[in-house]
């Protein structure tokens, strides 16, 4: 796939050279009149990708197919699971109220159990250690399994800005399902560069998740602690992410798509006994259809 993308990139470069020679896709004096857009946005991407899972005893998340289903009405919209209503829209920004499902829960879906045997060397002999609570020898292996976490429904707002400088968003969400009772605020920025048939969008984002939300997902609560999992209180903290999306448009409806994303988890999450690696890395490359 990379070889195909490299080949396409080379052909784009060649095409760009030609485009530059005749000034292709240059802003023209014609008025910007866009054709009316369909309320629906439907798409499908198929390819190969993976998203690492920072949780202990869990599998990475394979990304083979991505379905895009969105509907944009005059005010209401549905965007791949997010349900929103536009409350302000002008030349400078658009503000929406949005209900969504928390994304941290996705990591807790592909977990498995490891069994750990605790022994100690005593007088040259290996013997089971004793349970610190009861004092009885621990002859049986102890299970190590990430605790169960629930999905949370969050309600909040987002404000979207755009201009020649790129696009940015500010968002704030609070749990309304009594799952973690916490909140998240965040900002994102991205800038799309389009040359010939090739578009390239680097992005950057910062998010702050408060203590209640962070501890619900990434803390080890008292009733969950064991010999294999020490209690841990996760504090609120700041995480950041960088990403890159590229598209090579073959036709109006068909393109080659590639995406890379790196998210650095907050320090407190990174130190949790539930976390194996303090980051999430994702990638995908494939073919995408827009219907």
């Amino acid at each position, binding site marked *: 796939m990379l070889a195909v993308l490299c080949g396409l990139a080379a052909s784009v470069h060649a095409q760009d050279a030609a485009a530059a020679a005749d000034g292709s896709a240059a802003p*023209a004096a*014609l008025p*910007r009149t866009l054709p009316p857009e369909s309320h629906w946005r439907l*798409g499908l*991407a198929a390819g190969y990708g993976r998203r690492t899972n920072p949780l202990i005893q869990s599998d990475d998340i394979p990304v083979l197919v991505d379905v895009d289903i969105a509907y944009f009405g005059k005010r209401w919209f549905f965007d791949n699971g997010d349900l929103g209503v536009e409350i302000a829209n002008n030349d400078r920004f658009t503000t929406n109220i949005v209900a969504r499902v928390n994304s941290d829960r996705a990591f807790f879906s592909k977990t498995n159990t490891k069994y750990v045997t605790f022994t100690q060397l005593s007088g040259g002999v290996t013997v089971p250690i004793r349970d610190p609570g009861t004092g009885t020898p621990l002859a049986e292996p102890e299970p190590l399994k990430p605790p169960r976490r629930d999905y949370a429904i969050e309600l909040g707002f987002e404000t979207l800005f*755009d201009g020649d400088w790129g696009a940015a968003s500010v968002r704030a969400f609070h749990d309304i399902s009594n799952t973690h009772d916490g909140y998240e605020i965040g900002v994102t920025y991205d800038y799309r560069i389009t040359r010939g048939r090739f578009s390239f969008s680097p992005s950057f984002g910062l998010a702050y998740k408060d203590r209640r939300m962070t501890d619900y997902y990434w803390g080890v609560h008292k009733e969950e602690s064991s010999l294999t999992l020490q209690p841990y209180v996760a504090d609120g903290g700041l995480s950041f992410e960088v990403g890159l999306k590229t598209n090579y448009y073959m036709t*109006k409806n068909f393109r080659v798509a590639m995406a890379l994303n790196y998210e650095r988890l907050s320090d407190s999450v990174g130190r949790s006994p539930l976390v194996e690696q303090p980051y999430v890395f*994702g990638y995908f490359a494939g073919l995408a259809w827009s219907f």
Partner: protein
Amino acid sequence: MVVLKLRSIALAAALGLACMLPAHAVEPSVRLVVKPLLCVLDKAATSCMMSFDIRWKSVAESEYCLNDTLGPAPRICWGAALAGGTVEQRQVSEDFSYWLGAPAGTERLAEVKISVLRVDSDDRRRERRTRHVWDVL
């Protein structure tokens, strides 16, 4: 033995299908090839300045004209010929087709569509940054 029998049946079926198909796929009498076929617009760009390489080939020598769906007059005509070509530079801001026909004729002997794709939108909600890495669309 069973495998051999199955292979024989498959071979006979394949031969039967081959016999049902014409010996040659029917070639169009006129072929029109145009490159490039797509104009991608983003942000303030309202049109692409494109250099079209247009080539055609026919099995029958005749007079042909190159037309497009944006105007009534032919772009260029050729006298009795079996093939022809031209390079045309033009500003493109909407979908259209090049088509080849006889002079003053309306029958499209061959047609190629040129598409314009806008990758941005006036509706900012359509540019929402999705939150998962698998959202690549």
